[in-house]
């Protein structure tokens, strides 16, 4: 059985595979650095941040490939806000993001050990005092 005439419809969003790189290969994105040797890439990679409504921060939504910032914004709109998920989008070249080293968890981030006094719950003598 074969389907009736396949419609050569638009297939735009599937055009992920690319040729002719227009910008340098990103290698240092936080999400996209695996420690493996750099691979062949087409368009550069962009990280997408979406503000879901006024008053909230932009939150990382995912990533995409695009030849330039303008196209990255348009692609991000089509890919990450098809259902009113956002009122504002940031796209950032993945290579422009500096990230902390995942292996330095202990030494890079200050130890919270014995530093309960940084939290309000440490101070118990004021319990019962109103508006404090």
């Amino acid at each position, binding site marked *: *059985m074969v389907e*009736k005439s396949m419609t050569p419809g638009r297939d*735009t969003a599937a055009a992920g595979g690319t040729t002719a790189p227009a910008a340098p290969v990103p290698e240092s994105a936080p999400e996209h650095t695996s420690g493996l040797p750099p691979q062949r890439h087409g368009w550069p990679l962009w990280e997408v941040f979406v503000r879901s409504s006024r008053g909230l921060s932009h939150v990382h939504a995912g990533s995409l490939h695009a030849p330039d910032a303008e196209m990255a914004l348009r692609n991000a709109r089509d890919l990450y806000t098809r259902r009113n998920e956002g009122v504002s989008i940031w796209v950032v070249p993945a290579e422009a993001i500096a990230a902390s080293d995942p292996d330095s968890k202990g030494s890079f981030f200050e130890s919270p050990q014995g530093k309960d006094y940084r939290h309000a719950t440490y101070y118990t003598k004021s319990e019962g005092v109103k508006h404090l």
Partner: protein
Amino acid sequence: MAQDLQSAGPDEAGQAYFDRIMAEDSRIEPRDWMPEAYRRTLVRQISQHAHSEIIGMQPEANWITRAPSLKRKAILMAKVQDEAGHGLYLYSAAETLGTSRDEMMDALIAGKARYSSIFNYPAVTWADMGAIGWLVDGAAICNQVPLCRASYGPYGRAMVRVCKEESFHQRQGFEILLELAHGTEAQKEMAQDAVNRWYAPALMMFGPPDDDSPNSKQSMAWNIKRFSNDELRSRFVGMMAEQVKVLGLSLPDPEVRFNEDTGKWEHGPLDWEEFKEVLAGRGPCNAQRLERRREAHENGAWVREAAAAYAAKQAAKRASTAADDLDVRKVA
């Protein structure tokens, strides 16, 4: 030898860290150390999943021009666009493991990559749009909801997004079948015929039976997979057995029943030889699907080239304007 000993150090620490993450049922993130086999398994699974979404656009795109109303046309376009989006979320997740998008695309187009066997069956009537939404997307949801908790962070996050969007797909399919089932006698027959044809392939989407699924055990140990193939299939059959009553149709399987002793739903035998044949590339539409994907990729080449050329031109223009500004400042 000395080198081996040296490299064993970080790996051992990495393995210990990885094991602890697994024991805590926490998440692995892209830059964490992970066993090579874990990385390979994920790249294989996520890219196959992405390919399935991309190839899965075809059976439905095929019906956009012949959808029975403007409303159905708009819905179908939105759904096909979603499938493309799902493919892109998943390719992004797979890329975080160090495999490039181009590599994955090339593998698909060259016929070296696998995708879900279900998309190699033809969509021959409008009722198939209903059966695909209800049964195929229904089975996909059953499979995907537990994947939202997969141990690999980017995969789980992509699945959360996919699952949110997928429920509209299943409901619109159900609605198509419901309307046909309450239409003329011929429409009801068409709906039943579509359910008859898609039922078994949809059940096989969960993969081979547990005793013939060699990779399942490891995937479960790695918290990628949360439930076995048969477990998920049984759950799915139970849901469909109830929902089909609302449709006023029937499942083409007289052996579907709830087993009081095991507390599980059971179904009749499935043709696993057919499953293997389709996976091996000998299904009814394998050649057609790949050919269409190749064609779409090639036909889109000029768009990709034009966009890249435009981006390069704009970048050059910006660079020369910046240089001019600099000159002006020097003169001033």
